[in-house]
Every structure is written in C-alpha cells, then in structure tokens.
C-alpha cells in the first residue's frame, strides 16, 4: 500500500491543459508544411521528383497532406527554401480538398457540421477500426486515454462496440481482407454517425498506394467527415481535431 502511495507521489500530476494553454512540441517535429511560393521552379520540380509519396505538385506549388508522410525529404533537399515544416500540429480538415495546401488551412471549427456539435458536443463515443494500419496510428489514438491527454475529461471515449458508438475512427489503407469487416462495423453503428479518417493510409493509401491489396482513400467507400493527416498524426493533432470539430 505504501508503495502504491509512493509511486503515486513520484508520478505526480501529468495532465496537460490544452486547449486552454498552448503546447509546443520538440523542434524537430514536422507539422503543417509551409510552401514558399517564391522558390525557383526547378527546385520545386526537384522536390516533387524526390518526394517518396509523390505528394508535391511543382506547377501549382502545393502539397497534398493526405499523401504526405511528413518525412521531410523536400525540406532537406530545398534546405527549407521550397518547403519547410512548422511546429503547428493543428492540421486536420473536414473536406479532402483542403488537404492540398500551400500552407494555409481553413479553420476546422468553422467547417465542421453544426448539428454534430449539438449532437455530440457533450458526449462522443468512438469505435476504432484498424483496417491494415501499421499500429502507429492505432498507438497514437490509444495514447489519448493516458494521463497526459486524458481524453475522457472532454466526454470523449473509445468504446468496444459499434452499437455504442457515435463515430467510427478508421486507420490503415483498408486492405481487401478488411473491407467487409469495416463496412459491417459502419452498418452496425447507429445513425446519425460520423466517419473519421486518421493517417495518410486511410486518407490516400499512404505508403501502400499502388498495391492491388489496398483502397486508396476511405472516402471511396464511406462518406468521411473528418480527415486527420500524418504518419501517424501526433496525438495532439488527434486531440485538436476531436475538440475543434465536435466542441
């Protein structure tokens, strides 16, 4: 018993105060990309050619955050002159087209559906479906339940059954072998329901695009309400998206 108390004291109080207080991540974290429009065209083309995800459109000077895995290859190649990644983790959007960006994003709160806020603003139950995810997105969703993030204090929980859920949170590039299970989970969730795509894989197929075994975008199967980009999205990105979209 004394050891339980000792550990409790040593561990201390760890829950953050976001969104009331700002959180700064470590400097090497790569968040919202910023595209420098004044960069030379050939530099933009070099970055586009080197991008392992083919996420850069050199002519329009935009980057597709749905494809991007935030590896930073373009930033290194251009020494930050064409693309630089900022520390801004608030990068989720409600429409897929907003993911193709020059570095500016529309406010998520203004684009969220007002009736969702009314329905789910005080209590939101999520059913997570891993559909061929590599376990990184899953891990950084799971971590929201730990003391630092403490998702439950916002009335948001992950639940065991789709019958108890208001939303399904999908990760992974939806393999051929998971498609039916995913669609059945969606069907089993009572309406009105929300669909959230988490991670590059769920949004565009991610690193696995081009494989005949995966789906290139959850939105080709289901109506997606919220897109959370990243590989995986930082837990703060997930937290921001859930709070801004539903609160």
């Amino acid at each position, binding site marked *: 018993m004394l050891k339980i108390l000792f550990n409790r004291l040593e561990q201390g109080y760890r829950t953050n105060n976001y969104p009331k207080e700002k959180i700064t991540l470590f400097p090497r974290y790569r968040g919202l990309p910023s595209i420098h429009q004044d960069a030379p065209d050939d530099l933009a083309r070099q970055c586009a050619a080197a991008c392992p995800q083919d996420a850069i459109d050199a002519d329009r000077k935009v980057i597709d955050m749905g494809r991007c895995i935030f590896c930073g290859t373009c930033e290194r190649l251009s020494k930050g002159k064409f693309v630089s990644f900022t520390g801004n983790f608030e990068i989720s959007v409600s429409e897929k087209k907003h993911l193709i960006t020059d570095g500016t994003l529309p406010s998520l709160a203004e684009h969220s559906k007002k009736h969702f806020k009314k329905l789910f603003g005080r209590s939101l139950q999520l059913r997570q479906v891993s559909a*061929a995810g590599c376990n990184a997105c899953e891990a950084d969703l799971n971590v929201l339940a*730990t003391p630092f993030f403490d998702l439950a204090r916002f009335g948001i929980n992950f639940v065991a059954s789709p019958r108890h859920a208001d939303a399904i949170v999908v990760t992974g590039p939806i393999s051929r*072998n998971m498609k039916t299970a995913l669609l059945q989970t969606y069907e089993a969730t009572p309406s009105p329901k929300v669909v959230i795509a988490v991670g590059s894989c769920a949004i565009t197929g991610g690193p*696995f695009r081009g494989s*005949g075994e995966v789906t290139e975008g959850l939105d080709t199967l289901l109506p997606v309400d919220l897109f959370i980009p990243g590989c995986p999205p930082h837990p703060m990105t997930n937290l921001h998206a859930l709070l801004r979209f539903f609160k």
Partner: protein
Amino acid sequence: MKTGFLQIRHSRPVDRNRIPDLSFDEFRKQAMEIVKNKGKVVHFFAYEENKAIRLMAVLRTDHLLHVAGCKAPESYPSMSRECEPFHMFEREIAEQYGIRPEGHPWLRMVRYHPNCQDRPDVFGNDYTKDIPGNYDYYSVQGEEIHEVAVGPVHAGVIEPGHFRFNCIGERVLNLEIQLGYQHRGVENLLQTADPKRLPILAENIAGDTTIGHALCMAQAMEAIAGMETDQGAGIIRTIALELERLANHTGDLGALSGDVAFLPPANYCGRMRGDFLNLSLLICGNRFGKGLVRPGGVRFSIDGEMNKNLINRLGELKNQMINVIDLLLISTPSVRSRFEDCGKVGKTDAEYLGLVGPAGRASGIPYDVRRVFPTEQYGKLNIPEHAEHTGDVYARAKIRADEVIQSIDIILSLLTGPIASKEVPAAVPALQPSAFAVSLNEAWRGEVSHCLLTDADGRILRYKVKDPSFHNWNGLSMALRNTGISDFPLNNKSFNLSYCGFDL
C-alpha cells in the same frame, strides 16, 4: 558437421553464384541435418528467376548462418513433419507460389490472397469470396464443447485478426489464430515500387517496429551497395532500436497491469511509454522513429544539448520505471498470483515451435540477435545471456521489465557527448548485380530479418521480410492450451505479437 550449405555472415554481400544450387533432395536432406544439430530456420522462401521458381533457405547455428538454394519441385514432402519451425514458411510458399508441401500437418492459407504464378490454388480458395467464410477451422467435437469466435474487429484499439477458441467450459482446448486481414502486399511493393519509396515501405511494415525493419533494410542495402556507415550513425541507430524496445515493453507492462485490474501501473506505464516515444520525437521528429534510418546512415545527429536532455529525461524515467516495476512484479501479491503459472509454454514446446525474442527467453531460450549476430554498436556492448525458465505470463513480463532497465543503461552508456553523423544522400544506393544479403536485428519482439536478392542488372529480384511474429503466433496458441479463456487478454498482451508484421 559438413553440408553443402554455404556459411555466410549477416549484413555482408554474398555473390549469388557462390550460393550452392542443390537438387531438391539434397537441399532437403542437408537442411534437415542442420536443424537436427540444433539449427534454426531464419528464412525459407521461394522466388522466380528466368521463369523458374526456386527455393532458398537461410538457417542459423551458433553464431553462423548457412544458405543454399534449389529449383522448386511442383510439390515436395513437407519438412514441418520433421522440423516444426518450417510450418509457417511452407504455408507461405504454398500461398505465394502455389507449391504444395505434401503431408503438411496443417496446410491452411496464411494471408488469403491468390498466388503470383497463376497456378491452381493450393487451398482451393475462391478469392472473389470474403475471408474468413471459407476457412476450415480446427474443431473439437463433443457434447460440452463450445466455440468462441473473436475478431477481426476487436474490442480495443488494436489491429484485426480472428481467434477461434474450442473450449470445454471455461477451459481452452485449442486456439486457432487466423490472420491475413492486414495484408497490404508489402513484399510485392518492395519488388515493384519506385526505389525512392523503399525506406518508407520498410518503416511501415510494422509501425511499432519501425526502427527494427528500417535497420534490416538499410543493412541489407548497404551490404549489397558496398556502403559503409560512420560510427555516429551506428550509435544513433543503436539508441533508436533501444528506445523502440523501451516504449513497447513499457506499454505492454502497463497493459498487463490493466488486464489484471491493477490500474496505477497501467496509467504510469501508459504515460512513460509516451515519454519514451517522445525521446524518438526529440531525436528525429517522429514518435516512432520514422524518417531516422536510411541506407547509408541516419538523417539526424545528436548535439550536445540534446545529449544532455536525453540523459536527464532517461535518468528520471529510469528511477520511475524501477519503482513501478517493483510495484507491479514484486510488491503486489495479487498481481503475481495472476501472472504466475498462467499460460505456460515450457522450454521443450518453445524449442519445438522455434520461439524467438522475449517470448523465447521467457521459456528458457536465451537467443538474442544482439549477442549472437551483433550489428551497429552491439558488438561492443557485452549483451549478457538472459532467460527465465517458467514460460508463464510472469516470465514474459519479467523479461520485458529486465530489458527495460537494460535498454536504459545501454542508451545512457552511449550518450557520452554529441554524436555526429554525416548527411545521408536522399537517393537509395545503386545495388550490385547478382548479389545476396541477409540482415538480422533483435527488435523488441525478437529476430527481424530481411533477405535481399538482386538480378544480373542490379534490380531487386526478391525482397523477403520476416517479422519475429511469424515464429511466435503459435506460441500464443500453445500458451492458451488448458488455460481459462478469461486469461486470453493477459496472455495475448504478454506476447503482444504483430498482425501487420505477420500479414505484410
């Protein structure tokens, strides 16, 4: 022992013309001779070259690797009958290339996809139909027998897979684990995708083993491209692999605690796991180490300030981990009573199945790649031989807990000052033609290994990936025999195997 297999070293280039090309009968006979003299299976796979299908095996004995190949017959007498660790490899070859192992003890599909040769399907599957409707599970007959089906979608935030229990009352007689839901066609992509995508694909084979798989790819490519990495890269890679082990072991200790309803360590470990992930974020900008390791080296150095920051944070976490481990595994009898004798896998069974990593070490098999086939800095680190002998949940938890403290000490011993490494070129290096390399690393679940074969033009002919889970899933089935079904989550967490690493 003299065989026709060629002795090779890991992460070193091998001229493919030197690899013995045996007749199948000779290949089988010699492979059996090696495994009967305590040899283990590292790889056994098929590939296509000049319109012919060939087989290749990489086996290991004490500190030695052996390789040989042969032309694949249409079908062959199964080797699993004589050496169980071939079991899953033979099923994989049957699924990928349509070659039947005759007399295989349990010839079932592995990942549910058609073979790449347009051959008749070995399993008689119609792939327009959904998995798992046409999977013929092992079933037990009897009046009081009942079946429990779990998955693919599980109750928690975890990966998909199907578990089929045959029970009498609460007691599990047999657990069959059917996977394949996560299959993304990784090996096919590794052989066909634009080379610039390769390191990204390796990092995403299993996100919780990003560093383990990225290291295997980097070392195999560096071997075949004739690239040397500098010492700084070696140190940073070692630190990254240990941080990955720390984060995962810590998370699993917390989950084990949660599964016996002891919530304080569950929460503390959950938080500290995040702190270990954040140390990877500190070094490379990604909590899972994505973007750090590339063929040729690493993309980030550790400067003096970061070195100090890492030492301070690790020192603090080490004290906290020691206290939480004491609370979980030593001072709380109710936890011990749940962990001890639960899900036992004896050494004989573990040897028979060929378990690796912490699951093997918990059952008395001390094999650790870091000691036996050291890469990067491990040759200088004196990794001690370590094993538990009870093979129960407690042993698996104890091994993990010991490794947490060991990993922290390893990292602290490497953080002696700023660690510089030269800039890695963005492009993947050109590969030598007709070459072969096998790389091995002790990731947190055990032996990860990649095989890379190039053709006469230096293109990738075959890229074979093996996650330790490929060896260990049957260990979980074995642990559940005669165990109460309510102890499944506890046992599952004590192994915590990879679904996507297995499914590829």
